[in-house]
């Protein structure tokens, strides 16, 4: 466990040394500030458009931070040859992967806390009643969704050659799942065979990241969802994260490092 923590600690430090988070946070802040300053029919209590667009920017920023951070980890260690002294110490490849995962996941979690604090401040300026429970569920589910994405990106980084290709492919895949994931089965039923079966198999295989997207509920004040449902979604995320990390470890343990 110490080995895992040591590896993840380095990743967390790397996040706050790099400029990615700061740039995305400032960009989100500027755009939200611009939207906040807009005047619609002299009504300063209009808030839902602001919540929706601010959350959208938070989702994009968090996704970019998670994917870019995770995609660079293993290729950078190999490129700089720091992986050799690291693995020469009593640390297994499995611990290395898990350490990298926890580092990226915790780092994105920290970034997420800052983003949601900002979101809370922005909405509090327009709304007297801020639904804390709903926000906590949103951040919790969002964080677990990023856990699945980080694990998937680490798997991608041991398969694809360059971090740029990993980043592009994972961002496209995650974006695709978030936008059309839940409609795939309906789309499949309209298709002839064998496309129908292929699309249906894809539908049941992919991690349904839309489970973790409660933006509509937050924006339109629908209140909290059942905590049991929230727990089940967490278990779903744990299952996919473990699966992807296991796959990453299986590929990485047989991979030549130079």
């Amino acid at each position: 466990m110490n080995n895992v923590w040591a590896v993840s600690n380095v990743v967390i430090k790397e996040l706050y040394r790099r400029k990615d988070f700061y740039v995305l946070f400032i960009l989100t802040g500027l755009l939200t500030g611009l939207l906040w300053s807009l005047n619609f029919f002299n009504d300063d209590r209009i808030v839902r458009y602001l919540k929706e667009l601010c959350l959208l920017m938070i989702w994009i920023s968090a996704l970019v931070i998670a994917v870019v951070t995770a995609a660079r980890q293993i290729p950078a260690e190999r490129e700089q040859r720091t992986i050799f002294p690291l693995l020469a110490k009593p640390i297994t490849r499995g611990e290395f992967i898990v350490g990298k995962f926890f580092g990226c996941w915790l780092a994105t979690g920290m970034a997420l806390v800052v983003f949601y604090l900002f979101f809370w401040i922005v909405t509090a300026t327009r709304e007297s009643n801020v639904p804390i429970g709903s926000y906590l569920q949103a951040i919790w589910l969002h964080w677990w969704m990023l856990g699945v994405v980080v694990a998937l990106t680490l798997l991608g980084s041991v398969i694809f050659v360059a971090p740029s290709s990993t980043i592009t492919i994972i961002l496209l895949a995650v974006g695709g799942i978030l936008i059309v994931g839940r409609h795939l089965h309906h789309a499949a039923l309209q298709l002839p065979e064998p496309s129908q079966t292929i699309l249906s198999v894809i539908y049941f295989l992919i991690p349904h990241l839309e489970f973790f997207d409660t933006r509509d509920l937050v924006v339109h004040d629908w209140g909290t969802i059942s905590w049991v449902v929230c727990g089940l979604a967490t278990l779903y995320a744990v299952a996919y994260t473990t699966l992807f990390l296991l796959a990453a470890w299986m590929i990485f343990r047989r991979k030549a490092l130079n």
Partner: protein
Amino acid sequence: MPSPRLLLTFLLVLCFTLAVRLQLWYQNWAGNRASSASILNVIIGDSRRMFANHFFTKADAYFHSGFYPTIFDQAGAPKKLHMTETSGEPDEDEHDHAPAADKSGKKPVFTDLPGFMGAPSDWIEKFGRNFLPSEHVHLESGGGQREILPWLRISADLDPQRVETYTVAAYWLRTQMGKVDEAEQFLREGLRANPQSYEILFELGRVWEENRHETARAINLYELALKQWKNSQSGKKEPDDFLLAQITGHLATLEEQGGHLAKAIEYLELLKTVSPTPAAIQEQIVELRAKMK
């Protein structure tokens, strides 16, 4: 082989001549975006109308607190937007016009929504519905509807020729938010972009009749609306009879209240031609004729 200098000079002259020629043509070209004062027009051109439509629909999605079909659920999408039905337009879907909020303050649930979601086809879909708005509600009256306004404003900026945006926004502004000045200002903005619009003139008339209680001005606006309706709709295969009925109905009522019974009868005669209940209108006419005697 001519000298490179001569060739270069020739090419420069050719470029200059073409530039002078093309510049003149470009200035007069209808597709020249640079002539537009709007930055959005310069950037996205005519595709802004598509975005305007998207944002108008988005306002309706907000009206339903996010419970709305996506492009993948088009079969269940409402033919007519509910926010426009409530704002006084005809109800083609026979939609349940329940009050926007009950007295307990609880969001009323509308049970008649076209079931765009249907029954879930698998466990993933069933579980996924926990994370989406899954009840048909309308925004509460008394200010809740203000949330649709930003999207209507953006829609109007993107497509100033879309008349419905102005009338719908003005309806909510004046009836639910008490923002009569803002409603009038927005309608006048719409009228500047669509000077022939009888819909906007009619809505302006309602502002003066129902909110400012200035009958004379309202009558003037309704008459202008009627004139524009005749200019644009007469001779059409399917004229906008609903709005003609609205205009003439309001005019008849106001003229009757003002004691101008002959004029009121004149408008009722016109209303009778498009009303779904001509017998009832005829009764009204008979009553007014009796009063005149």
